[in-house]
């Protein structure tokens, strides 16, 4: 008989009815303790023991369908429940007792996490600068342009170099300002905002990347605010990307500053 391990998808306040298919077509089952319910399924030890698992996650052909299955499970549980702590891919236990032990030992923390995200979904917003913003309206640039127009050719040449610097600075300020104001707008329209680290230089770097926690019954208001932000910082200069609603992968895992 093939040895199996216990794969943990998420922790919920209670068990849900109905079959849910998990990784490798296994059925999701429930482990209960401390008024918490862990959604798990059995996975082959040959693939999910620490050593093979850490090799397998580097193989996209192996990883992709299983990551998708993981997300499918959490998506369904998320849609069917008021609160969920969704785990990252690859949290595996030796047996049910270890999961029960986790629920017991972390009961208080898990209850806090569930309370934090109850009735909420996670969304992600990114603000990109597609083109240089129009800097001609800024005071410094305007003044230098005026001076250049009134100067001798020699002095104008020198001033043009200053102008180039002033234009770059102005563009940078406008972008920083756009990011700050979008962040501020998000704070007003959401329960919580987490400013994500920006991706490395190899990626088209956004001006801002933020996860937000939004009450599901206030999604329409949130969308209105996103539209307002899009209209305020429109294409083709900027682009505001939005994705969601998701299980709260980020917010259920964040430590509260006050904790």
């Amino acid at each position, binding site marked *: 008989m093939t040895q199996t391990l216990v794969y943990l998808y998420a922790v919920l306040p209670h068990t849900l009815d109905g079959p849910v298919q998990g990784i490798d077509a296994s059925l999701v089952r429930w482990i209960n303790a401390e008024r918490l319910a862990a959604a798990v399924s059995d996975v082959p030890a040959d693939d999910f023991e620490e050593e093979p698992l850490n090799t397998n996650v580097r193989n*996209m052909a192996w*990883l992709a369908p299983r990551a998708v299955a993981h997300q499918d499970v959490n998506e369904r549980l998320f849609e069917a429940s008021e609160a969920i702590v969704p785990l*990252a891919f690859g949290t*595996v236990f030796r047996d049910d007792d270890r999961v029960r032990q986790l629920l017991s030992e972390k009961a208080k923390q898990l209850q806090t996490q569930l309370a934090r995200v109850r009735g909420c979904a996670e969304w*992600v917003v990114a603000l990109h600068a597609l083109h240089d913003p129009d800097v001609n309206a800024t005071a410094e640039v305007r003044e230098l342009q005026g001076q250049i127009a009134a100067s001798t050719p020699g002095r104008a040449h020198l001033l043009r170099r200053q102008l180039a610097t002033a234009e770059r600075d102005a563009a940078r300020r406008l972008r920083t300002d756009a990011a700050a104001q979008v962040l501020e707008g998000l704070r007003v329209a959401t329960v919580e905002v987490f400013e994500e680290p920006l991706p490395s230089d190899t990626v088209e770097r956004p001006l801002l990347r933020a996860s937000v926690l939004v009450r599901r019954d206030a999604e329409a208001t949130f969308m209105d605010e996103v539209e307002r932000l899009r209209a305020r910082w429109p294409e083709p200069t900027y682009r505001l*990307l939005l*994705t969601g609603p998701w299980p709260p992968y980020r917010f259920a895992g964040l430590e509260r500053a006050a904790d």
Partner: protein
Amino acid sequence: MLPTDEEFTLLELTDRLLNRGVVLAGEAVISVAGVDLIYLGLNVVLTAVENLRTRREPAALRNHDAAED
């Protein structure tokens, strides 16, 4: 290249599932430690994105674009 809406969804989801999602560290007997090591560059992430996309109807990974509402 700026990601498309769909790529953005998959990139962010990949980031959460495999990189900085909830890991109850130290509690699991086994957990994927240092998965982020595989995300050294965009190319690897985009490979994952492509793989996810080709194996999947886009609808299942929900991409809610407000502009289309």
